[in-house]
């Protein structure tokens, strides 16, 4: 069934509602043979929902799907596979404790014999596909032992093994290093001579590099459709957000800071990870008042442990951390906060806020035990409410009322709540971990401006991120972390994507 080539695929009037949200609003989209269509838009614009409808994972409330001109209905992903459509999801759909072959077998119905799984046939198919498309994978490796880049390759091979001739890629580069991203882009453009590809992304330079045509989604509607080469990244960004976007940049010219006057001084810091491994291995770093130091690295190289140790959330094995001269290494989180540390944690929903508490409660959470928010063991509700209204204005937190549960806000607004709480306390130093991860460009712009404003007020900021663009735009100096060690610290203005990417992969060449 369905071995005819896919000459065209059309979506007509697709509409999907979730409780309270119109995720897709009468979307029309058509993709031809052997072409790469980029689908771009901010978070929550409806890109992933649309593709899940195309895969049969969601059922549309309205609208039709036409394949080579005739209407099809996909009730489950099986129907989509049968018609040669395959999707690589943003979050890898790989069962970690199974082998590569077992993961492919899961979807390869032809290997499901009665009372027996024909794993030999699966292995053979994997090797065929990986040879044909130049995607080396080991069918017998356990998925959890593979790197993120390798897992991405497995996902591609899996989708191709299941017979996909029409490939949907949902933010495929979001977990990759710059080098891995370049390789993937090159690979995909080669594959596009045989396949049709829909490429979902909000990284505009990737869209430019790979796609022939581009569709832009905003709030569930297609707002633009056209040839990619006619648009500049700035045009695309403006179309995506609905206004001109210019991410601010740091101006670190001139001011050479004397060494050793760190507001935050870290010396030979060693910290253990969850599995007892040495996650941080002798890290030394100084951050001066009014300086942003970017910590670049592929996630999982000790960033999380570093941030937790700096904030009293993780024990310190050896070494010292001085915040404005006070030793904070190994002290509890309350003491560290008391010394003037601010923290934007990696996981905003579980660490940054208490989701079931209201916005106003979350905004005073760090100082709830004392003046001015409580007195003699009672909360001063009036002061708490006034504070919330004030911060709501200043930080442009969009919520119905400050009594709304913080967890019901969008990611960008949750991040603003956290930012407002941390910055309103007037910290001496700030640790920001992936502060814009998953946020759209509007929110990103706001957060970047806030960070730069604090910098000019003399706050020492450690910015941990995987986004090189973000790090290069904001940092006075950039430290690259690899396997728990700082490989190199370079001035922000001298850094290039290529040199940082190599360092992030552990390559130090002088």
């Amino acid at each position, binding site marked *: 069934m369905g071995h005819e080539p896919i000459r065209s695929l059309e979506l007509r009037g697709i509409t999907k509602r979730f409780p309270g949200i119109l995720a897709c609003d009468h979307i029309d989209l058509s993709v031809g043979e052997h072409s790469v269509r980029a689908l771009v838009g901010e978070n929550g614009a409806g890109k992933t929902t649309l593709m899940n409808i195309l895969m049969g994972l969601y059922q549309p409330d309205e609208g039709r799907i036409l394949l080579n001109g005739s209407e099809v209905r996909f009730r489950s992903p099986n129907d989509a596979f049968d018609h040669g459509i395959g999707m690589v999801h943003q979050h890898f759909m790989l069962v970690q404790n199974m082998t590569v072959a077992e993961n492919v077998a*899961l979807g390869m119905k032809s290997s499901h014999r009665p009372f027996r799984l024909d794993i030999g046939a699966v292995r053979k198919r994997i090797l065929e596909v990986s040879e044909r498309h130049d995607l080396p994978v080991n069918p017998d490796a356990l998925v959890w032992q593979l790197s993120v880049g390798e897992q991405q390759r497995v996902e591609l091979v899996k989708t191709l093994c299941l017979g996909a001739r029409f490939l949907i890629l949902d933010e495929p580069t979001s977990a990759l290093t710059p080098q891995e991203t370049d390789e993937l882009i090159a690979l995909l453009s080669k594959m596009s001579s045989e396949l049709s590809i829909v490429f979902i992304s909000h990284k505009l330079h990737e869209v430019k590099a790979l796609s022939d045509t581009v569709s832009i989604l905003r709030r569930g509607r297609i707002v633009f459709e056209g040839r990619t080469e006619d648009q500049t990244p700035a045009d695309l960004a403006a179309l995506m957000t609905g206004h001109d976007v210019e991410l601010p940049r740091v101006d670190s010219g001139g001011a050479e800071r004397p060494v050793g006057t760190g507001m935050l001084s870290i010396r030979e810091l060693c910290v253990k990870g969850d599995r007892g491994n040495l996650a941080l291995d002798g890290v030394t770093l100084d951050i001066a008042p009014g300086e942003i130091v970017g910590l670049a690295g592929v996630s999982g190289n000790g960033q999380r442990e570093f941030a937790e140790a700096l904030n009293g959330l993780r024990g310190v094995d050896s070494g010292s951390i001085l915040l404005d001269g006070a030793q904070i290494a190994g002290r509890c989180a309350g003491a560290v906060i008391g010394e003037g540390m601010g923290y934007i944690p990696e996981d905003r929903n579980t660490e940054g806020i208490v989701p079931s508490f209201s916005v106003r409660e979350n905004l005073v959470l760090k100082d709830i035990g004392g003046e001015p928010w409580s007195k003699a063991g009672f909360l001063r509700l009036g002061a708490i409410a006034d504070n919330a209204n004030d911060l709501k204005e200043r930080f442009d937190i969009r919520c119905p009322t400050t009594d709304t549960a913080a967890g019901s806000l969008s990611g960008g607004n949750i991040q603003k709540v956290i930012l407002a709480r941390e910055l309103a306390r007037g910290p001496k130093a700030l640790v920001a971990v992936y502060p814009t991860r998953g946020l759209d460009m509007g929110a990103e712009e706001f957060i970047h401006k806030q960070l730069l404003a604090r910098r000019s007020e003399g706050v020492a900021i450690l910015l941990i991120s995987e986004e090189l663009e973000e790090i290069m735009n904001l940092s006075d100096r950039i430290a690259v972390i690899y396997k728990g060690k700082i490989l190199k610290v370079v001035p922000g203005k001298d850094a290039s994507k290529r040199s940082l990417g190599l360092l992030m992969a552990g390559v130090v060449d002088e």
Partner: protein
Amino acid sequence: MNAGSFVLNILILGVPFSVALLLAALGETINQRAGIFNLGCEGIMAMGAFVAFLPPFFMAGTPQAPFANLIGLVLAIVVGALLGILFALVVVTFRAPQGIAGIGLQMLGWGVAGTLFRHYVGGVTGVAGIAAFPIPGLSRIPVLGQILFNHNPLVYLAFLLVPVFWYVLFKTPWGLKVRAVGTYPRAADSLGIPVARVRYQALALGGAMAGLAGAYLSLAQAKMFADDLIAGRGFIAVALVYFGRWNPVGVMVGALLFSLAQALQLSIQVAGIDFPYEFAVMLPYVLVIVVLALVRKARMVGPTELGKPFDREQRV
């Protein structure tokens, strides 16, 4: 009594003791591999024990009596599977918290079995039950024959099911699906595997095994029914699945270990060894706790989504 026959006795007692645990725990292994822990195992065992007991009890002396045990076993399996499906309805379809739902099922099974028993049967009454079936030839082997080949047919069945379950879990398409929906249901869903249906199937099989385990207790081990016949074995079975790292072979090792400790404590009492009997009775349970505490936390073995309901349209 000399030391040799003391040890032999423990082994001869321990093997059949392990069967009820082994059957229930094999079923629970499938449940948990599919991502669902069924604390109601104890209740299903009580129902299985009760319904299996009925045919031999009421058919005693009739011409159909020879088939009574078989009818009882089938009944226990069917009732067990139905209770498994009931549990699936609650935790898969309605996404109720599994721990609470399981405790509910345990109390339901225990209460219904006990009430019906008192109403229709009354006091403690024995049945003929399933007789031992020494395997010709093999049972004559000195020592080994007595330990392994001189039991009722369900004992052999239980141990034969260990490799069968291992094969099903690791070498068949269904086993692959079960493992996938227990570890990463979203991935299974993205490949068109019906997550809820696979979980229903797993729970039906697990329930059937728990029912069979209960039937073993009433028909083969105790040859009677009483309110507290199961005595926590359903909960031990759940613990044994963790102990055995979700692998049928590991589960068997656990069941044997626990049962040998049980046999040891009985033998201590029977032999009149001067040891406080309360402590002897505690021994197997203490052993389970100690072993569970010591088991190495192996990475990436078990079902990582254990206990979590799956909702495709829940946004992540």
